């Protein structure tokens, strides 16, 4: 075992000289950008759709009952499906219906489906953190729903929404590693590629781990900073314990 370790070390040194060259650096950098881009597109769209979903979920009236139920069903379902399973489901559905989407697009669609559900829950918890009396008061002053949202609720809720939403985004940078399984050429796939070329796993996957860390850690710190900056006295306890936010908030710490 001890000798084995020395052998590994020799191989490692030998391969390193070959591995750490400009071309590979460019290749890995591109893969890293793919990882980042699909996370940004997926979570960005997820945020927009999440807002729409919450808006429908909170629209009162009997007429909107089917819409509300659909939205609740959607959110509850897609928060409970593993990302890996969803990826394959989306891929086979796209292919089964003969659609000509790139693997990158398939990955983005999958991310949007999941992030809409999760970020929707985070936004809902944020809106709930603004006390009902603020709605009543605005109501009594003849604010419309949109006016109340725009002038009263959103200016208070965004501080509660942003930290967990950002934590979700940072977490998803790591979860996009699974898209390598449908063949997207992102960071993990790049690691597999080099490993298959015969480079040691310590070298190929080790390098990829470091690159993920470089992507994720500064943003984690940024998230902490944001959380500390935006933490207000008025913040409602409910928002912190509302689930959806919880799992991700914990992952962010």
């Amino acid at each position, binding site marked *: 075992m001890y000798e084995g370790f020395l052998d590994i070390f020799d191989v490692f040194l030998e391969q390193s000289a070959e591995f750490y060259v400009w071309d590979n650096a460019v290749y890995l950098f591109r893969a890293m950008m793919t990882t980042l881009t699909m996370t940004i597109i997926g979570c960005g769209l997820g945020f927009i759709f999440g807002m729409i979903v919450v808006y429908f979920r909170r629209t009162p009236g009997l007429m909107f009952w089917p819409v509300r139920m659909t939205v609740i069903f959607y959110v509850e379902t897609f928060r409970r499906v593993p990302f890996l399973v969803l990826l394959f489901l989306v891929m086979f559905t796209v292919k089964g219906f003969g659609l000509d989407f790139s693997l990158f697009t398939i990955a983005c669609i999958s991310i949007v489906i999941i992030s809409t559900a999760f970020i929707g829950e985070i936004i809902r918890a944020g809106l709930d953190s603004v006390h009902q*009396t*603020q709605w*009543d*008061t*605005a*109501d*009594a*002053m*003849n*604010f419309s729903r949109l*006016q109340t949202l725009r*002038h*009263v609720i959103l*200016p*208070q809720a965004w501080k509660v929404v942003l930290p967990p939403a950002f934590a979700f985004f940072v977490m998803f940078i790591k979860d996009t590693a699974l898209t390598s399984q449908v063949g997207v050429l992102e960071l993990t796939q790049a690691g597999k590629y080099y490993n298959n070329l015969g480079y040691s796993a310590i070298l190929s996957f080790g390098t990829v781990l470091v690159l993920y860390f470089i992507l994720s850690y500064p943003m984690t710190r940024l998230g902490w900073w944001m959380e500390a900056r935006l933490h207000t*006295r*008025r913040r409602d306890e409910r928002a912190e314990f509302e689930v959806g936010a919880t799992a991700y908030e914990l992952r962010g710490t």
Partner: protein
Amino acid sequence: MHHLEVDGLTATYDGKILVLDGVSIQVGKGEIVSVIGPSGSGKSTLLRVIMGLLKPKAGHVKLDGDEVDYGNKKSVKALRDRFSIVFQQFNLFQNMDALRNVTIAPVKIRKRDAQKVEKEAIELLGKVGLGDKLHSYPDELSGGQQQRVAIARALALRPEILLLDEVTSALDPELVNEVLDAIRILAKDGMTMMIVSHEMGFVREISTEVIMMDEGKVIEVGSAEQIFDNPQTSRCQDFVGKILRH
């Protein structure tokens, strides 16, 4: 014809608990009608129902003889254009300073001229003694100051009737008077008001009419003197006796 006429108003919470049971009240122009009664007697609910924050089960509310249809958004909107309410918990918009709290609805909802509204708002805040707190946020103000901002905010909407819902109940005792003083000024100006309050001395001093409620029903209606010195019903005698004893 009275200015505000409430007739047989009935309301429930969650469709089960009866909180208002056939309440009838008349308020004339320039009158100050106070509603008293033990906690849970439905006083605050009465104001919430009148404002359309809680839908009534039965009964009518008439404004200058025109009936309000609480199932109809337009009708409720029209009513809210003529009424203002001040809440027990102030309910200032936390994301706006005092001045913006007062100006937001007239400017954004009523679409009145921003500069004129601001001038009026500064006057109003001065009137309630907060001329130096225009740019303070709610969490920088004491409860009494917040409640006075809330009163100024309600007045900025130029209501025909002002509803005051236990506006001093959430305040520390030493802050109660500054809010009551603000209301006294309004009374002097001839503002029509409906007041729900536990401050019996104040109610007695200011009211043109006092209504005693219990268990969602009106028990007795009369002048302040009648209700406090010579109550007719035993339930009212009981309540007033308990309150005046200490």
